[in-house]
């Protein structure tokens, strides 16, 4: 819209105008580019590692442990030990713990029902007290946990008159009658009823 007849000043002005228009365009584009980078993947985006999945897995793990502790199944699982072979009952393979399957007791049935049907793998640890601090015995190992595994724990008390459980579920000797090397959990203190305080930990993750 330059009116014809403008003097030579319009020439240089044209370049300045272009420059200003270009600057304006670059400014807007840069601002839009900056703004678009603000959108991001949030923890609620659907994926196997979504926060909701983790929270739900935590709740169901806690629930399984709680109901097992109330019904006595957790005590039975911790005491489900073969004193001659120094391993849990019905373990396949060379290790002391269960691989890929669940223990063949009520606690194993419960975890099987809650986890295996839903494509969740889990490891179970038993933490117990020794003179040198807290040591760990693995009960179930189904693999290496992913980055988004959750952990739930339950503490139970073992007393001297609790009994080792045999393969068929019946009761055997009391803990105080056992020798030191027959059971993986040592007696913490001899002159009272307390045998040991044990923490059962379940680590679960979605596969």
């Amino acid at each position: 819209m330059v009116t014809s007849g403008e003097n030579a000043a319009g020439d240089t002005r044209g370049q300045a105008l272009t420059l200003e228009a270009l600057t304006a365009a670059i400014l807007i584009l840069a601002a839009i580019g900056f703004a678009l980078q603000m959108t991001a993947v949030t923890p609620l985006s659907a994926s196997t590692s979504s926060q909701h999945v983790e929270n739900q897995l935590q709740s169901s793990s806690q629930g399984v442990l709680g109901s097992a502790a109330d019904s006595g199944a957790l005590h039975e699982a911790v005491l489900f030990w073969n004193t001659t072979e120094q391993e849990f009952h019905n373990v396949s393979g060379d290790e002391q713990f269960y691989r890929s399957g669940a223990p063949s007791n009520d606690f194993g049935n419960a975890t099987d029902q809650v986890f295996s049907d839903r494509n969740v793998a889990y490891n179970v640890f038993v933490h117990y007290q020794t003179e040198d601090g807290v040591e760990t015995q693995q009960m179930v190992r189904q693999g290496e946990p992913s980055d988004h595994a959750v952990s739930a724990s339950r503490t139970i008390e073992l007393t001297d008159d609790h009994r080792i459980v045999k393969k068929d579920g019946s009761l055997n000797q009391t803990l105080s009658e056992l020798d030191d090397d027959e059971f993986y959990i040592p007696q913490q203190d001899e002159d009272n009823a307390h045998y040991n305080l044990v923490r059962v930990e379940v680590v679960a993750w979605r596969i």
Partner: protein
Amino acid sequence: MANLGSNRRSDRGQIILVAAFLLAVTFVVLALVVNSAIFTENLATRDDVAGSHDALDHRAEVQASVGTALTSINNENGTDLSDKKGNLSKSIDNISQAGGLHQSTQGRLVDVNWDSSDSEEGVRIYQNNASRNFSSDSRDDDWVLTDSGNFDVRNFQMNITEPEEELFPLGGSEPFRLVANDTSDGDIEWNMTVEYDGSLPTGEGLVVNVDHPNHDEVSCTHELEDDAGFVLLDVTGASIDGESCHALSQLQDEDGTPMWFGEGVDEYQIEFQNADSIQGTYSFVGDDSMSTTGADDHPEDPDEAIYSVTVDYEFYTSQVAYETDIRVAPGEVPS
């Protein structure tokens, strides 16, 4: 602005530039707003403060652990009260120290303390001989175990051996009956019968019937495993072999009618009837209002026992604190 007079065109260019600048500022502010929205979504997914649920969960664990130790100590026959208290005090110290160690690996400070004067004393009545029926020392089949009084009883457990042979079959006239009898008023009593039923579709079972003044009789059935040889009946804990029995706890009707031991009677004495129709061991602990001076002879002398203890529980994390007393009385009936 360029010279207004001669070159109007330049004004437009610079207005466009200013407008572009202001729009860019708008976009940046929008970006801040969107950033806040994303942060909000993130905040919404976060779990509650770490340890806030565990303060309460661990309280239940401590209650259960101390209860386990208390039951084990009470079951030691022939020890007197001060021995039991000393044993319990050391056990609780061990539990506190071990529990504190476990919890400290998760970043929490937990302490459990017991002052041995903080306890209720009681009496434990029991029979340890698993091949004997529930009759009194002088072989009476209907006998009275305690004096009449307003007392509480907890952890009433029966280990019934050889149920197929010893229990009375269903429909028989004289099944074993446990009675909480209010002697002041003739018919008022809470009672429970235990019978054997060999005709269940799935095999053989145990039938428990409970009756009390405020409700009709209710029964529950438990299937026996083959060749089990024994059944564990927890009267105050309302379970048979670990499986819960609604006839001993609470019905699932509109009012949630309670059926617990001693429901419907205030003052009572505990009686066994047809004690030859059952065999095994039994044990229960009563508080200090329970006495046995006027009762029939027990097969084993009642022991001094600890009825309940009150421990001091502390739970601290950097953001949560919970300090309270916990009264531990394992197997007590809800009031």
